[in-house]
């Protein structure tokens, strides 16, 4: 009897579940829906929040300027917790129930990679704002990316160290995930070209905040420069511990560092740290200036790379909708592919695979703020993969 009752409850729950999900998401006629999956809870919530605010800002700006094709842009937001497992149902829901015309990923690689397959299959254009995994755009011709693949940025890092800074003996400290791995791959690929000798390499996990052993070993390696991948929450403690361990050679990072929070965590140790990224704080371009000011006003903290990427991806989506002049997915896709756009992260265009072509911004910490160091514009070196 008891078993039967539970059995009945289980079936009832299953049935009502499938019924309930069918009832949500009636489309509004006077707006154009753009989907976005971002991590709002869990370990990646900080980046997800920034990316979402950036995207919302772009949507508000577009609506204030008369919307798109006479309609307002409406964001449909789902929290994917940066997990591939959640991303697939969310992508399916965006496509089928919310009937979004185009979607954006403000999430990490795993979730973006998994969702990209769903959007490709459904023929809905999908733009990855800052996920680095090379396989994302290989999902098909409806998938684009507005940030650099890790390899490209790794190559830029090699050029920065070997050529601009003229340092030849380099130690790699690599974050053990897809981001760090692809950066390291790109760096190694280009190292020889710039006369760089990689004298040692260490790996750490995204959960690590204590780098004492690595610092001790790096000190005995005595490199000319350190190329360390990471996010602000790992790079902050890392740089601070490198400096207090008595290592004063240049530390070169990348866009994962790109947050005011990095400077806050590392404090004085952050001075002089150089990174390759997408947002130029000292840019003369009105796009970047406007974004930096508007973001800080909306969010209450300083803009970072992730925010600029969310903003850029959204801008691309809106520009493509305007350009296409219709809501036909094929027309929107073609519009993205043919786009050239001024955005907060530079002048954007896409190659045949849907990878972005733009310059690499090199930023340095000076007096507690990010400032322009230089710009790397080397179309050959920075050429994203074509297939």
């Amino acid at each position, binding site marked *: 009897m008891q078993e039967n009752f539970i059995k009945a409850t289980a079936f009832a729950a299953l049935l009502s579940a499938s019924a309930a999900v069918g009832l949500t998401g009636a489309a509004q006629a006077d707006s154009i829906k753009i989907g976005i999956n971002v991590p709002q809870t869990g370990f990646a919530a900080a980046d997800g929040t920034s990316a979402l605010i950036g995207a919302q800002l772009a949507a508000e700006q577009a609506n204030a300027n008369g919307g798109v094709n006479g309609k307002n842009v409406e964001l449909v937001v789902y929290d994917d917790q940066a997990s591939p497992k959640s991303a697939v149902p969310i992508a399916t829901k965006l496509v089928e129930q919310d009937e979004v015309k185009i979607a954006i990923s403000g999430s990490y690689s795993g979730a973006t990679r998994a969702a990209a397959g769903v959007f490709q299959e459904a023929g809905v254009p999908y733009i990855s704002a800052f996920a680095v995994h090379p396989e994302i755009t290989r999902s098909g011709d409806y998938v684009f990316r507005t940030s650099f693949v890790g390899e490209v940025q790794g190559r830029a890092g090699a050029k920065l160290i070997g050529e601009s800074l003229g340092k030849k003996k380099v130690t790699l400290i690599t974050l053990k995930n897809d981001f760090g791995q692809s950066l390291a791959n790109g760096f190694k690929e280009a190292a020889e070209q710039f006369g760089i000798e990689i004298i040692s390499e260490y790996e*750490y*996990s995204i959960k690590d*905040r204590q780098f*004492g052993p690595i610092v001790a070993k790096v*000190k*005995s390696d005595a490199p000319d420069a350190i190329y360390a991948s990471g996010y602000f929450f790992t790079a*902050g*403690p890392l740089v601070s511990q490198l400096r207090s*361990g008595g290592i004063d050679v240049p530390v070169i990072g990348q866009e994962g560092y790109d947050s005011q929070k990095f400077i806050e965590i590392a404090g004085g140790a952050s001075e002089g740290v150089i990174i390759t990224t997408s947002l130029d704080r000292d840019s003369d371009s009105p796009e970047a200036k406007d974004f930096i000011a508007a973001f800080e006003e909306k969010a209450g903290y300083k803009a970072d790379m992730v925010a600029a990427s969310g903003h850029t991806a959204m801008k691309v989506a809106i520009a493509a909708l305007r350009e296409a002049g219709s809501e036909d997915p094929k027309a929107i896709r073609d519009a993205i592919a043919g786009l050239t756009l001024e955005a907060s992260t530079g002048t954007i265009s896409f190659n045949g695979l849907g990878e972005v072509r733009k310059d690499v911004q090199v930023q340095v910490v000076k007096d507690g703020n990010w400032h322009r160091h230089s710009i790397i514009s080397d179309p050959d070196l920075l050429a994203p993969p074509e297939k």
Partner: protein
Amino acid sequence: MLAFELLLQGLVQGSIYALIAVGLTLVYGLLRILHVAHAGLFTLGGYIGVIVTNATGSLLLALLVAMPAMGLLGIGIYRTCYQPLLSRPPYVALIASIGLFIMMEELFRLIFGPYGLSFTAPPLQDTVAVFGVNLKEAELATMIGAVVLIGGLALLTLRTRIGTASRATVTDPKMAEAFGVNIGRIRDINFFVGSALAAAAGVMVALLNNLVEPTMGSVPSYKALAIIVLGGLGDLRGTLIAALALGVIEAYGTIYLGNLLDRDAIAFAFLIAVLMLRPQGLFGRA
């Protein structure tokens, strides 16, 4: 020289592990509960440490606020969450504890924001030379703090009436009760002391990283469990040695085995190897 530096770094990490795990083992020894939410108190201790220090400029005051506050919260958690579950199979309390820990992490994120907090003027950041090795003052303070706190605790359990009562309760709760030990009070005290130590560890980690994040407790939540198992579950001395040993093994492992296995895997490979040879842990009684 490098070997010595790695040893020191391992001991710093080990001291943190020890402060967290000792509290956990106090709880385990008495109640046989794998108290995952302990790591939540560690995190909250870190938050209080940063907030109070930023407000008053005094790290000492921050410790004096964080430790008793977490101690009291620990008692609260025991009374409301675990006490009613004591007669249940241990996994019931374990899952309840995991649920509690998830809630705590999410509350920290909602209240303090996803980016975490840092000291505006982080104290103890200068370096000092110890036998020719540069150490941050905060690292030194962590080691000294662990020695003082855990040493004090050991004296307390060996030399005072409460300590004797506590040890008696661990050995045989019914007998202890028959001899007039107030078991409820002993449990409260253990939760208080254990949680206060976790708070101290949280403040020290906040100092070392200059960062407290909502998810700061996720690694300690499982690694501290491994340590108390390694130390023989409920054994104070074993836990201390296991914590320091694990810190040192991880320090060497990161450098010399880093290309084979990550830090967690090294720690657990060691744990499994030990348990296969000594199923009752390094110092547990068979």
